[in-house]
């Protein structure tokens, strides 16, 4: 039995783990088997995470966060949660390998999952020209013509990244202006390989074995057209990943988990939520990290309110060596 189990290993999950571990709560992080590290594992250069003046690679940042959490006694498990029982004082977390862990509190930080276009051929051609990960798949589109659909920061980042490989990158967007930040927009606008296709929705993907084109519909006039591309990168946003807690936690109309005011408290006592799974608006690595901090502090506060004998039964932190590295740590 644990005092706290953290589900998720993005900036929210690992920051919650760092705080919980430093509070001697010996947290267990369920990091996922193939998505450990979260969305930043699929990014390249992160330029807006404070403290890294020269920028840092997304996967490197996540590895550092994991190490920092482990340094203070966090245990990380690379598996997926298959079932979550949140009612009652003792929460139950079932993993893919069949293990069941119990905890007095849960930090739910599962982030969000890429949104799909919802087109009939999307699934069939996924991995055959349809992609959600430019950093993984861009390499295979050397000297090709490809398209990115979306108008936010991630669409601009993907488009800009893909110009390293592709000869031409169309950016397809439903509106005539972008949601992306000014810096990302300007970078994309100034790139000679990127061409914007405004007021257009992708309404079909063509190709028998590999993608050979996309159908477009003008969102203003309704006119249809076809564009020959050999790849389609989809970056139209993400939806909070809440399937594990449906019927248990209250969910907002936008899909995020309901929390109480500026806290991380959900409708179930002892269950706290953090990161993109509660945030329909900002969704930045650093806001997620801040949100993870809030959840760890809320969990710590809750655990302090429980009877001592109950908490005493939980896994205690292993004595962490090499603490003398920074003598003034406790003042931080």
């Amino acid at each position, binding site marked *: 039995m644990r005092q706290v189990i953290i589900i998720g290993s993005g900036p929210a999950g690992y920051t919650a783990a760092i705080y919980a571990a430093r509070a001697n709560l010996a947290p267990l992080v369920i990091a*996922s*088997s*193939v*998505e*450990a*590290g979260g969305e930043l*594992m*699929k990014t390249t250069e992160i330029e807006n995470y404070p403290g890294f003046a020269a920028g840092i690679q997304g*996967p490197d940042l996540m590895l550092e966060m994991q190490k920092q959490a482990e340094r203070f006694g966090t245990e990380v498990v*690379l*598996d*997926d949660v298959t079932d979550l029982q949140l009612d009652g004082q003792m929460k139950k977390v079932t993993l*893919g*390998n069949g293990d069941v862990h119990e905890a007095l509190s849960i930090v739910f930080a599962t982030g969000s999952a890429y949104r799909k276009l919802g087109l009939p051929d999307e699934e069939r051609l*996924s*991995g*055959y*020209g349809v*992609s959600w*990960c430019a*950093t*993984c*798949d861009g*390499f*295979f*589109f050397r000297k090709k013509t490809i398209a990115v659909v979306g108008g936010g920061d991630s669409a601009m980042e993907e488009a800009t990244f893909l110009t390293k490989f592709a000869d031409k990158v169309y950016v397809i967007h439903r509106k005539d202006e972008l949601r992306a930040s000014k810096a990302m927009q300007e970078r994309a606008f100034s790139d000679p390989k990127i061409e914007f296709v405004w007021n257009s929705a992708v309404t079909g993907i063509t190709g028998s*074995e*590999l993608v050979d084109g996309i159908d477009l519909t003008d969102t203003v006039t309704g006119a249809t057209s076809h564009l020959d591309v050999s*790849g389609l990168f989809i970056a139209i946003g993400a939806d909070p990943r809440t399937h594990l807690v449906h019927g248990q936690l209250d969910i907002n109309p936008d899909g995020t988990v309901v929390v109480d005011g500026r806290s991380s408290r959900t409708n179930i006592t002892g269950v706290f939520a953090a990161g993109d799974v509660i945030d329909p608006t900002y969704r930045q690595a650093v806001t997620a990290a801040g949100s993870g901090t809030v959840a760890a502090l809320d969990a710590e506060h809750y655990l302090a309110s429980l009877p001592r004998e109950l908490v005493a039964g939980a896994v205690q932190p292993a004595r962490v060596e090499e603490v003398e590295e920074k003598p003034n740590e406790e003042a931080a």
Partner: protein
Amino acid sequence: MSAATEVTDANFEELVINSKDTIMVDFWAEWCGPCRQVGPILDQIASENADKIKIVKLNVDDNPQMAMKYQITSIPAMKVFRGGEVVKTVIGAKPKPALESDLAEFLA
């Protein structure tokens, strides 16, 4: 980084095409985060089913010919070969139970 044998453009024919075994080739690259996550899972599946399937890795950076020949456009891509032919393709990093169910016909 992994226990799996590395195959290359040069020895692909000898080690994969001409092999009598069922061989799964994991097309991967150093810069692909999901590839690095699925690698250890494939190692586990290989060691638990050593008598049924062999799993080898092909680095697409170093071996562009095979990546092109097999029309790889997304990695990790895992292709199962029998008698020189691709009999199954699995694309994307997945949890172990999902991979085992994708590969069920070869692990039985």
